[in-house]
């Protein structure tokens, strides 16, 4: 039953306009065609590349920064670190809508309005709150004695991060990356407010624009949705097993 929408999406994507009118959505197409897929791809090509660019960049950046933050918050413990963590946690609860106006103003002053860099910066900033929390919790499980041992072995703060912490962080990196990739990829609000022009338009916005103002090309729209869903699907298929191990990592000590 829960696969029905996906099924409908697939069937409709392969239908011509004629088939859409003469068949109910769940029915397979009478004469399958890849025409809608090609049409949708041509329209979505640029936005998909845009989305992929800023999503990958922001995912990598937010995970890396989250990891460094988590390390600093658990293993270095500078004065006021608890306060800093509290502020990070508050960031998680900050609704997107609340920051829209200042965000747009800031971006345009920085000259980053309507650019990929602007989207990368925004999503990274928004993402580090949750990734910091995630990495901090994971690093809490790494015994302090490991860090102390590395110190007495002669390693400095940065070497410890690179040689000890980072190699032990595969699981939280996968979890954070999937989480970030999905949420940044699916984001519509920041995309629609920060990147209206075509240069930086995300796929989510382009998909919404497929729906014309006067006519409804259901097949093209469904095909567009299919293209749009593809990267996330691939991510889950490839990283799925790590993800489950990552979710379990907290329960069973490594």
């Amino acid at each position: 039953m829960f696969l029905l929408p996906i099924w409908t999406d697939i069937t409709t994507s392969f239908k011509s306009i004629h088939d859409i009118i003469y068949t109910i959505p769940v029915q397979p197409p009478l004469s399958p065609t890849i025409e809608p897929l090609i049409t949708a791809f041509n329209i979505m090509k640029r936005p998909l590349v845009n989305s992929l660019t800023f999503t990958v960049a922001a995912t990598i950046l937010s995970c890396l920064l989250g990891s460094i933050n988590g390390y600093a918050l658990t293993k270095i413990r500078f004065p006021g670190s608890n306060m800093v963590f509290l502020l990070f946690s508050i960031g998680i609860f900050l609704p997107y809508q609340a920051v829209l106006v200042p965000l747009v103003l800031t971006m345009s002053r920085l000259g980053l309005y309507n650019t990929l860099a602007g989207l990368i910066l925004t999503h990274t900033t928004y993402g580090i709150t949750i990734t910091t929390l995630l990495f901090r919790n994971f690093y809490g499980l790494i015994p302090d004695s490991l860090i102390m041992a590395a110190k007495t072995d002669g390693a400095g703060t940065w070497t410890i991060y690179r040689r000890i912490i980072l190699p032990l962080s595969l699981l939280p990196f996968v979890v954070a990356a999937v989480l970030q990739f999905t949420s940044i990829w699916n984001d519509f609000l920041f995309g629609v407010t920060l990147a209206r022009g075509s240069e930086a338009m995300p796929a989510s916005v382009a998909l919404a624009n497929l729906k014309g103002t006067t006519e409804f090309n259901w097949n093209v729209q469904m095909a567009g949705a299919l293209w749009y869903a593809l990267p996330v699907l691939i991510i889950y298929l490839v990283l799925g097993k790590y993800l489950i191990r990552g979710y379990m990592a907290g329960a069973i000590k490594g």
Partner: protein
Amino acid sequence: MVSITIKNLTKKYGNTVAVKDLNLQIEDKEFFVFLGPSGCGKTTTLFAIAGLIKIDAGEIWIGDELVTSGEQGIHKPPQEREISMVFQDYAIYPHMTVFDNIAFPLQIRKTDKNEIQESVTKTAELLGIYQLLQRKPRQLSGGQRQRVALGRAIVRRPKVFLMDEPLANLDAKLRVQTRTELKKLQLELGVTTVYVTHDQVEAMTMADRIMVQRDGIAEQIGTPDELYNHPSNLFVAGFIGSPEMNFIDCTLTEETNGLCLDAKEFRISLPAKMSSELKGHIGEEVIMGIRPEDLHESKSAVSATQENAVRMTLDLIEPVGPYLLLHLRKGRVSLVATVKDTRSKAGQEVVIEMDLSKMHMFDKRTTEALI
């Protein structure tokens, strides 16, 4: 090589004083043990030497170099002190092979590859873990992990070894075995070693000198022999030795034939040579201490007339193996004696002779030793 000097070291956590005004001199090549119950400040002191924590006051010198000074705000980070450390949970890096674990301190110092290979091989051979070099830590047993941690500590020949209860996580048999090997290794390498433990047997067997700590204060510093035979206060006397020293509350009185200990249930006349030292304490409450091996069962059950003999009920006999533990009672006084052999049965009356030359006496108020 180097000695370690600690001057007026104080470390507080919030309002709790972990280490209070500690003064200590650890000699070159010495195997020095910090001994005490958990929370006594021994690990804090060790971490202060390592530079893993900052201190509130005092100075620490490694060799002729001032590495920490609370007053002058000097704090050399651990990586710049020529120390290496072994932790209770071994703290070996789980993602590295045994080889990389041992090589880590050398790699950090950008040592030449061939030299690393050679040093690691030599260290692994010394510790008998050469065949494990390509394994990951999770494939090793506790004892093997412990050796890897040791290997990592000795591979770069530091000036000082710091060990934080390195044997605590091993099972009893392996612990005894490793204890001996560790001591041999230290003698062989001749490196100044500071070793933290709460196990007094470990301390006694391995140490050149021991510091007994309690509540952040050094109760006594001395050789195992000094601590065992001349404890400077009640705490050290009770902490060192197993089975524990017997303590009896007494009053010191003066009789016609000299000084006498009155334990209400019985009285013991003190030898004349002790009298002069104890003259000033007549009438005071004291605690008499005597170790279980200094209590002997009298062969002739009738001779309870001697000054140092007490007739007691034998409650229980515990065979330990090399000796027997006799649990004795007379009124509110209970004693434990270790004897080689006995013909008595539980429930019988026996005569116990005390070796008064081995007796200890403590002021009940200050708990300091009187003789």
